[in-house]
């Protein structure tokens, strides 16, 4: 049973590492303007990962609740990280995008009204940043420190740091969308909206094509103008290009006076992806810094000396002193270690029956084993 559990943990760790690569590629694909095929594949794999982590969270929660440890799991074992990195992402990010992909074949032919729905999806795409919390889950699966205290401590402060970064980034995006913080998205969309208004203002009358051409010349984000249900009066690119380069949520859609305007909202996605990549790199650097710089220091200054002292107190034949690094003798732990070295060990030597005898090498299991073979 334990082996199955270990194997599943290993699978989760591999999945987290893969999803971090996926997270990077998902944003990189937007910056690098990958084609629709590649980006769609990333959407489907993202859905698969979000489903996997959702099932993982639900299973862990169910097992915890069955053992009456639901609160323990959710709060103390960071089940809230499992939750935030699964269900919200599935419901607010990957599932809507997947549905939009399914519905969005033959985009420009009839998806107009669906694009309004996509506005909601765009509004909650900031939730994507929650994917970065999955990095914290790695600490559960990987044993990188001998001491449980060191492992737990580094895991805790990494969770705090990453969570603050992620939740602040999420909060700042919400404030931007709400108009409380100034951002680039609002003026961009307002400008686009104004130009779309100017195109649609005259309705489907004779001047529509000229208005469309004029606005498109002034605003490179205007892609297609057509009368609703009628012919296309302006298109920036050949039709095939849209199928290759644009996913459903890359369009802005405006409808007024029987005129439809499709605009390019990829610059917003690019800006958003750039921010997301910066956040991803920040999270990775934070994690690496804690693992490679902080964890060894914590081990050297806290958990290793405590381990030596614990063994010395628990094992009669363990009499090694704590090594006190130069310049650290005023640290609390090393002051305790100095007392251990200068008071406890000599006392143990005087009073213990094996105080100066050789360390035990033989165990009862060795005798039992030998008897079986004799």
């Amino acid at each position, binding site marked *: 049973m334990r082996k199955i559990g270990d194997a599943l943990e290993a699978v989760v760790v591999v999945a987290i590492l893969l999803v971090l690569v996926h997270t990077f590629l998902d944003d990189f694909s937007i910056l690098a303007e990958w084609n629709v095929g590649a980006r769609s594949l990333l959407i489907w794999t993202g859905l698969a990962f979000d489903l996997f982590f959702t099932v993982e969270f639900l299973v862990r929660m169910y097992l915890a609740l069955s053992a009456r440890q639901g609160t323990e799991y959710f709060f103390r074992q960071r089940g809230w990280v499992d939750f935030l990195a699964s269900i919200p992402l599935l419901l607010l990010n990957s599932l809507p995008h997947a549905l939009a992909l399914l519905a969005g074949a033959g985009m420009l032919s009839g998806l107009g009204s669906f694009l309004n729905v996509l506005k909601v999806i765009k509004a909650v795409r900031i939730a994507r940043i929650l994917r970065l919390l999955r990095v914290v889950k790695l600490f559960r699966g990987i044993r990188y420190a001998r001491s449980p205290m060191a492992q737990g401590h580094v895991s805790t402060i990494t969770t705090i740091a990453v969570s603050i970064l992620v939740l602040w980034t999420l909060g700042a995006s919400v404030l931007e969308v709400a108009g409380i913080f100034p951002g680039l998205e609002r003026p961009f969309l307002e400008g686009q909206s104004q130009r779309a208004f100017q195109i649609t203002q005259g309705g489907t009358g004779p001047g529509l094509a000229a208005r469309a051409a004029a606005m498109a010349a002034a605003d490179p984000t205007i892609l297609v103008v057509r009368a609703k249900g009628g012919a296309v009066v302006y298109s920036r690119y050949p039709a095939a290009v849209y199928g290759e380069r644009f996913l459903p949520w890359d369009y802005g859609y405006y409808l007024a006076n029987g005129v439809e305007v499709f605009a390019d909202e990829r610059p917003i996605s690019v800006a958003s992806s750039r921010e997301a990549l910066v956040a991803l790199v920040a999270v990775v650097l934070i994690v690496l810094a804690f693992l490679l710089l902080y964890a060894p220091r914590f081990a050297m200054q806290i958990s290793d000396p405590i381990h030596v002292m614990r063994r010395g107190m628990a094992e009669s034949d363990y009499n090694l*002193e704590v090594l006190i690094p130069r310049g650290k003798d005023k640290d609390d732990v090393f002051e305790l270690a100095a007392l251990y070295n200068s008071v406890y060990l000599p006392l143990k030597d005087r009073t213990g029956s094996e105080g100066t005898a050789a360390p035990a090498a033989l165990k009862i299991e060795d005798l039992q084993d030998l008897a079986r073979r004799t």
Partner: protein
Amino acid sequence: MRAVDPVSDPVSRFAMRLMEAPALRALPALQKEEQALNVLRSNGPQLVPVFTSLGMEVSRGWREPAALVSRAIRAAADRMMEAEISELLSSRLELSFFPVLSEGRSAPERAREELRSLISRAARHPVARSALSGSLAAARSDIIDKYIPQAFERKKYVYVEISRVQRLSLAAAQLCDLVRFIVLARPAAYLFIATGETQDREAGYSPLQEQYLTKILAGIGSSAPSFPQTLLALGLRSTLAYQPGASNVEATSRLGAIMAHRGRALGPAVVVDRGADSPDKSWFNVQRRNARWRGLDGRMLDELYTIASENGW
């Protein structure tokens, strides 16, 4: 007691295999014995199935079978120890100090044989056997050859005490040889101590009295006539408790006492935990705080601790 064929008798075979266990491989014979007897003592009742599988009678409890196994372990240790002592006396002990301490005479041919007899006699005595455990471990290990040349080179306390106070003109290698002899002769001091006169855990390491040593010296000397009594006395007097300032114990004897005590604590290669000091440094540091209690020379321990620190030993 019936004679037991060590090959066919299952108890003896078990004891031999136990003494050859991988966990004990690096230890000298008496420390293997100590480890094996400790496990028997600490886990007696849990070993009833083991005794049963060896065909031993367990209906009256575990003590009798445990005693039989203990005897077999001691017999196995004796056989192993013979080989160790032979190897020590032939290749590690050169008696190069002999001319300096016996008016220019070289060691006679039979000197090693006499020393072997003395050591074997100590091995047969329960208290002296305990002392021999640390002595053999120290003599076989590299601690004497590691620390004494360094102490000599530094020309500080150890060097001054030996060359100026004790007035021995020895090279470092000769001093190592002498200290090795001292630790090997040391257990003979306990040959006339009855079991119970010292506390069990300190058997073979409790300080002895000068008057007692003076009384037994002649008897010990008669069993090893090749050695001048002054030389044998250095070994016996390493069991005296050193009193700082009283100069009651020769420097070489004090050094021998420290090495014998260190040998007692030597074990299989200890895996030093990250954050822990080395076994040598830890031992010297603890012992220099307990020097007065153990009757060891604290200043020598200070110097040996410094040597261990400087060399990362």
